[in-house]
């Protein structure tokens, strides 16, 4: 039982890492980025090329990919999202959906259908474990991922609440017209925010590649888990994403306890319950979930 709780908590750290960029994009830009999963997979291939083909140390590969994904985010915003903004709620959805399809197939064409893992890049770390009292073993990598999730969410929250850039991002996300009146270049700010969201995706890609393996079409599964964690937790603060990830991971673990194939079903049930509770309105309503007034 103890090991089930610990493992669910560690799994939650992984889901939180996957979901952070998605939640950040939504709360800051009002864009549900359907290419979120595909972009994480893309970052994963980037890490693989840098670490495996170019033999760069793993932390260096992560740093380079974060810079690269930040730039890609700026370009993505300038080229696509900024044009889709203001064209209704469907347009950004369709645009990012299209991007995900293009990315999926480009990656299939470039890297083939093989599943790839980053585990060989970090030596024995991928299977090393801590031994807890009571002969409970927990994988080191999972512990590091949970710790990283907390650090990443903490840093992004700190950036948003405490820095001039964060205040600028908040102002832009709440009210572009007013932000512009106060001298904020809202297009540039939104582009930077997109870059930050994509840069956090590199951490997600590292977690994905170290825990397991992925293929060129792996994005949709990532998107699903991230989306479930965000909807269960809500997006008012990124800490709620961590809470949502914990609920999701526990529901999946309980599902697996009931039936060996109940893992996914358990998570989906928790997601559906969250949606129904929110649809009923009140304290947990959809409007509250997204931290803003409901739109008709």
């Amino acid at each position, binding site marked *: 039982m103890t090991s089930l709780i610990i493992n669910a908590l560690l799994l939650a750290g992984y889901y939180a890492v996957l979901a952070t960029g998605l939640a950040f994009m939504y709360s800051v830009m009002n864009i549900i980025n359907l290419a979120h999963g595909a972009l994480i997979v893309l970052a994963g291939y980037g890490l693989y090329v840098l670490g495996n083909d170019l033999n760069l140390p793993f932390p260096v590969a992560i740093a380079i990919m974060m810079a690269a994904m930040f730039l890609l985010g700026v370009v993505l915003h300038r080229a696509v999202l900024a044009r889709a903004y203001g064209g209704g709620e469907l347009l950004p959805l369709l645009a990012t959906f299209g991007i995900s399809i293009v990315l999926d197939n480009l990656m299939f064409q470039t890297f083939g259908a093989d599943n790839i893992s980053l585990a060989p890049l970090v030596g024995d770390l991928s299977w090393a474990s801590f031994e807890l009292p009571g002969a409970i073993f927990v994988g080191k990598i999972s512990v590091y991922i949970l710790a990283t999730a907390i650090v990443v969410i903490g840093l992004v929250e700190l950036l948003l609440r405490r820095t001039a850039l964060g*205040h600028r991002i908040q*102002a832009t996300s709440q*009210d572009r017209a*007013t932000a512009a*009146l*106060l*001298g904020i270049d809202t297009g540039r700010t939104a582009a930077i925010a997109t870059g930050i969201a994509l840069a956090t995706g590199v951490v997600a890609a590292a977690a994905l590649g170290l825990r397991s393996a992925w293929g060129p079409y792996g994005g949709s599964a990532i998107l699903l888990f991230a989306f479930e964690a965000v909807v269960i937790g809500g997006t008012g603060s990124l800490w709620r994403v961590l809470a949502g990830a914990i609920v999701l991971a526990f529901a999946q673990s309980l599902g697996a306890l009931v039936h060996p194939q109940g893992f996914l079903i358990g998570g989906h049930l928790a997601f559906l319950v969250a949606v129904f509770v929110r649809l009923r309105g009140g304290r947990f309503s959809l409007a509250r979930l997204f931290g803003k007034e409901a739109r008709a």
Partner: protein
Amino acid sequence: MSFGEFAVLRDISLSVGAGEIVGVLGPNGAGKTTYMNILTGALRPTTGTVHLLGEDVTKLDTAQRCHRGLAQTHQVPKPFSGMTVFENVLVAVNHGRGVPAHDPISVAWTVLEVTGLAHVANRPAETLGLLDRKRLELSRALGTDPKVLLLDEIGGGLTDAEGDALVGLIRTIHASGVTIVWVEHIMRLLLEGCSRLVCMAEGKVLADGDPHTVVNSQQVQVAYFGASA
């Protein structure tokens, strides 16, 4: 300025001298808000130009005009929620100035002392009452170090006493050397606060001059109060 076939403003030409405080009056639909949106850059005029401090700013966007010394307050105050009153002003100080402030924090404090919000500086902005929200609008505008300040119906929804307090604050701001253009429904406030009054109706300037002369002119009486000619 036209929206499709519909011309909202035509042949409006209004120049405001440095240091003036000009009231703009007009019935609903006169084009006051459209006019103000053209000044800030929220709307591009179909034809015509906007000059700020002698420079043609027609092609500049809102943020660029802000950096050159133009600020505006909203009719309905929109503080940034999730931030304190102080942080709201700090956003303006950090981003709205053409020349960056050396010490943004003390500049923001000074602004809050002028506008009388220093005692609530650390409260979440969304907890303020209406008058204080309007003061916060003014504080944020002042944070950008404006040369010209546009006020959009800032007196709406206030009691008489609150309105008087606001006029006092606006006069203080004007006395510090800021040029003010004040669009307002409430004639009493404009008469108390302004040295020049412009009356608009149906997209045109009807009258322009000394406040009491403008208010008493025949055209304005007809347009604004519906008095028979």
